């Protein structure tokens, strides 16, 4: 199995604060890698570095064997192959659901409008949002907005999907409708890297779970191993706190 994404010895700091410290990670095709860890452990920064929204201080990032951390690379072309979904949805408030989804296929991929609309409507139908196509984002619930945001990045047929705590801004009732999409995508064979605090969900979809602490992966392995029989004392401590908060 070939690796879609390969990170080697990534280092990143903001000012004097070291956020990612010599971090390496491989993501094989059709697998889901789940990043867990406390806030500030570097999960979001890692995803933003992969998407080239942040530049790294050292190390290399490979996408399908091509080094995308090369400063001479065309970042727009790289980002076309990567889907990214944010904690705060970030839909475009001045565009309808349909326009949000078709913007990039038309302007970036050069698809013709009708084709893009047909594809978008098919995706909306698949995820039960057909009746929202012409609504503006502020008329949608948080869960619906986040589902639209996922569909928006799917419309570009990404090689790799990056999901950054996509349920953290949702109330518990709405979390599941968003996570069920991700489960669907996983069974379709989408390659994903996701940061999450939903440990139950992590158990269901993760091929590999990585526990991040101060910018490095302290423990990695199957969900069963890392979440239920952690070896590293820091992982144990973190999971104990998650458990106490009632999130396991």
């Amino acid at each position, binding site marked *: 199995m070939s690796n879609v994404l390969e990170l080697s010895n990534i280092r990143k700091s903001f000012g004097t604060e070291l956020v990612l410290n010599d971090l390496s990670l491989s993501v094989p095709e059709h697998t889901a890698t789940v990043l867990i860890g406390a806030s500030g452990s570097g999960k979001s920064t890692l995803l*933003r570095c992969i*998407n080239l*929204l942040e530049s790294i201080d050292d190390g290399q990032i490979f996408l399908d064997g091509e080094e995308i951390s090369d400063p001479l690379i065309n970042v*727009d*072309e790289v*980002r*076309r192959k*990567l*889907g*990214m979904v*944010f904690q*705060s949805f*970030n*839909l*475009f*408030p*001045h565009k309808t659901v349909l326009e949000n989804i078709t*913007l*990039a296929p038309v*302007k*970036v*991929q050069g698809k013709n409008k009708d084709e893009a609309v047909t594809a978008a409507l098919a995706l909306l139908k698949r995820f039960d949002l057909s009746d929202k196509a012409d609504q503006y984002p*502020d008329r949608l*619930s*948080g869960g619906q907005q986040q589902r639209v*945001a996922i569909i*928006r*990045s799917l419309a*570009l047929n990404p090689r790799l999907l990056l999901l950054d705590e996509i349920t953290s801004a949702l109330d518990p009732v709405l979390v599941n409708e968003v996570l069920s999409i991700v489960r669907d995508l996983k069974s379709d064979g989408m390659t994903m890297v996701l940061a999450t605090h939903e440990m139950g969900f992590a158990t269901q979809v993760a091929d590999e779970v990585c526990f991040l602490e101060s910018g490095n992966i302290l423990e990695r392995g199957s969900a069963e191993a890392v979440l239920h029989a952690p070896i590293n004392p820091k992982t144990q401590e973190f999971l104990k706190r998650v458990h106490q908060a009632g999130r396991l």
Partner: protein
Amino acid sequence: MSERINSAWSPSSREIQRRGARKRISRRQGFIAAVSTLLVLGTLISITVTSPGWAVVKKTFFDINYGREVFPTVIAGLWINLQLTFIGGFCIGVIALGLALLRTTKSPALTPFRFLATAYVDIFRGAPLILIILLVGFGVPALRLHGIPSNVIFLGTVAVVLTYSAYVAEVIRSGILSIHPSQRAAARSLGLTSGQTMRYVVLPQAIRRVVPPLLNDFVSLLKDTGLVSILGVTDAVRAAQINASRTFNYTPYVVAAAMFLLITIPMTRYTDRAIRARTNAQSSEGVI
């Protein structure tokens, strides 16, 4: 999803009491407002009307017959102000947008233009409009360049456009900067280039946000076109001045002021409403 209101409901006796109390309070407040208004207005009017010079003021400023006589010339002048406002407004919009985009771009090829745009805004935002009008109106013809019209209306418009472009550019730029970086991040992560991100995501939201302050500037623009009269353009102000200096009766000034107010008051009311609508929309943003 509120439940349907029960049709069998009738207000409780406590609620009926409360409604009565509310009605009494609002009646009392209305009474106080009316008395206060009458008192203040009455005092102002009686001070004016009983002042020793009122008879003279009434004749020299509020001569209705003379006002009627000069009305056509003032209106003809106002037409010039309106033309200046709309033609100038269009040019200002185009130039200001260009300046705002230049000042917010990070493209290295545009670095010299970014510096120039910043210098331009600093200069024209900082210098009094009347000085710019004088400098352009008298300085440019003195250059005796071929192809540059020495028409005062044209030069006056140029001066106003130069100054207002700087104001409006800053308003648009503040709108661009007010768009949250997460919008840009979302657009860029979809593969849109920085230019596409600006055009399809940032600018449409930014312009919507700055419409109320732009309407404010538009009202100011209409008023400030009156300043080109110092170059000898026969606009409403100048027309009034000519008539007033002919007869030493200042009624034409009052007529001109009334004409400006007739246009600017509805515009400012509309602007206030737009601002209120905008604030309401913003306060409901992000509420699920």
